């Protein structure tokens, strides 16, 4: 008991002196205190989990663009805490990541604001996505982009940021702003904010349809039949994405799924809830990505 009271007295004195040292970080500490509860009663002994930094995408952080394939680290469906967040991912053939340039309208250093042309050097398979990728060479630089349906080595591809009064009759593979294209063209690699880079319609064989153009904005139907309204200066490429028979392929055996990095689902029969089954419901309302000044931000 004596020893214990000495110990507690010592610890109490420590608590009094600590705040002086860490006064500037008190706020951070309270926050951390909430996040890091000490499991005092049930502490384990020693922790054998690997440290936090394992699942950060450090391999993808270089700022310089290169066409050389980069070695990639697989996550196995695990998140930053090390636990599985998405089941069924893991294993599979090793893959190298090729940096794709999704911002199609990227001018070279000294040639600003002019439509430019690039030559397709080769079209090849990309292990990281369902579509094929194409190596473009123009001016002094080379970059990878998502290939469209009939792209072949030796083609010349045009990219332009100019919206004229007349709609341009676009060839497949060219990239134009939405305002310059005629209504009804099949488009892919849609960007919803101008200059951000394309985030929609990139999978194999997909294409969106330009439905109508309404004073300064354009409405595009995505492959899921949802309609989006975006500014007409957003760049899209014309045509369908390559590898159109991707959805018709037959996996054939369980092993092929494992090569693709998909682990088997749990075999336990689980009662399906309200999420399962066919649903027939009206199309969701059109999503608008234009920030109109009249509508206040929510």
């Amino acid at each position, binding site marked *: *008991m004596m020893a*214990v*009271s000495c*110990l*507690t007295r010592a*610890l*109490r004195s*420590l*608590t009094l002196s*600590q*705040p002086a040292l*860490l006064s500037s*970080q008190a706020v*951070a*500490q309270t*926050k*951390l*205190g909430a*996040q*890091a*509860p*000490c*499991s*005092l009663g049930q*502490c*384990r*002994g*020693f*922790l*054998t*989990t*690997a*440290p*936090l*930094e*394992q699942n*950060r995408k*450090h391999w993808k952080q270089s700022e310089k663009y290169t066409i050389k394939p980069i070695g990639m680290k697989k996550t196995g469906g695990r998140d*930053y*805490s*090390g636990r599985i967040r998405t089941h069924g991912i893991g294993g599979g053939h090793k893959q190298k990541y090729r940096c794709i340039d999704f911002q199609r309208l990227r001018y070279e250093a000294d040639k600003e604001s002019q439509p*430019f*042309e*690039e*030559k397709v*050097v080769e079209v090849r398979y990309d292990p990281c996505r369902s579509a094929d990728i194409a190596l473009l*060479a*123009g*001016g*002094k*630089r*080379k970059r990878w982009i998502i290939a469209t349906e009939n792209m072949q080595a030796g083609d*010349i591809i045009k990219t332009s940021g100019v919206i004229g009064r007349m709609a341009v009759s676009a060839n497949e593979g060219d990239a134009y702003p939405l305002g310059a294209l005629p209504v009804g063209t099949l488009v892919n690699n849609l960007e919803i904010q101008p200059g951000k880079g394309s985030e929609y319609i990139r999978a194999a064989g997909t294409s969106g349809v330009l439905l109508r153009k309404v004073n300064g904005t354009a409405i595009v139907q995505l492959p899921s039949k949802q309609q989006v309204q975006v500014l007409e200066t957003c760049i899209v490429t014309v045509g369908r994405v390559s590898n159109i028979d991707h959805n018709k392929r037959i996996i054939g055996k369980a092993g092929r799924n494992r090569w693709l990095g998909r682990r088997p689902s749990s075999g336990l029969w689980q009662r399906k809830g309200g999420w399962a089954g066919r649903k027939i419901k009206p199309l969701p309302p059109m999503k608008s990505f234009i920030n109109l000044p009249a509508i206040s931000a929510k």
Partner: protein
Amino acid sequence: MFPETVQCLKTAAPLFCQAAFLKDLRRLSAHGGASCLQARRHFGVSRCLTAKVPPPPKPREKVEIPGLEMITYSERMHYVPGLSKPVFPSWEREYKDPGHYRSPPLQEMPLHKEKPCYVYNQRTNALEGVHQALWLTKTKLISGLPPQMLSLAENPANQIPDQNERVQNAIRHARFWDTTEERPGIDKYSNTLLFNLLHLCATLQSSHPAIGRRILAEKYSLAATWKRGEDLFQIRGQNGLLYNSMDPLPEVSGKQEVADTTDHILEDFYPVSPTIDLQEVHVYNEEVNCSGFRGDYPYPHAHTLYFIGGADTHCKLQPEQFRAKMVMFTFGNALARAHKLYGTQPQRVLDRPITLQAVGTNGRIFHFMVFQLNTTDLSGDDGIKNQVWLDKDVELYEFAKVRPLIKKKQVMVPAGLAGYKPETFSKFLALYLHGAV
């Protein structure tokens, strides 16, 4: 005992574990995880490590108020809370110590220039291959070797006794016998084969005394500069084996043909720029022209360049790019020689065109090239062009297999050397003997 300790430790522990937690996190996140990719055991029992890492705190902005003297703790020699951190003047060594030298940033280097220079070195992989090399060197391509070479090749007086037998033995030595392992690698056998063939050609010295006025040189560094359009180009590097001679090579095409090249239009490859894949440098020496040898070298005239395809393991070139490298380095050698003889001012027509040869091989397939430098005026696209005769993809033999290729119990390709073609070696010999006959 327990409630008391638990209470006290609970009050102590938040600050305790947070201090250590912060320290741990700082240690973990400070290096960006580079040092912590090894899984290690954590013996700390008081805290959970699987929380999200907080973002690194931004350091407080230092406000400089002119005229205000900051009281620092430099005299006290230890940190005092409340006093500012002293800023000491940066110390620089008075003498030059090459072991502790930090190079200045690129913009402050003495040779820094605004205008970039595009350098072709021995590891450049030109996208457009031979077309790009032809545009850069303002050259006209003629496929096939010039007729003088072919007649040289067929002349029986220029042949080695037992030529076919000896060449086949040379190939077998390079491909099969030169190792203690099962088969030698491509870098070894291409090298051995080239030296064996050169040795065979050199045995003709008894009948052709001019061969004695030549010598082989390896690992020499070439440098040549020229202007093309508005861009400055340089070619630098150690390319391969050089065969030097005391006498220059005779010119291959006459004055009339040289004048006819004015009508030839260089092939453009829009939209790709001709400077693609070249190394862009802003720190360079202008007007650097060095053939790799000093002025008083007894063998000043370059005769033939020998390129070995498998030599550089880091840089594997496709055949088209390999031929482009051959063209560029042959041109570089010729240009360095021309600058030495006629000065660095661009000359529209050289009185005596400089002729050079090149042979490139990957151990089985040979590319033969004859280059004639007619002009050093390379800025415009018109005018007299240089000429290159290129004989590409000539096989010396078809197969040299250590183990026979058997499909469905039938021997498709036997073990050993198969499909030897004697014409290739006669072309090789013709290029060797050109100028010595």
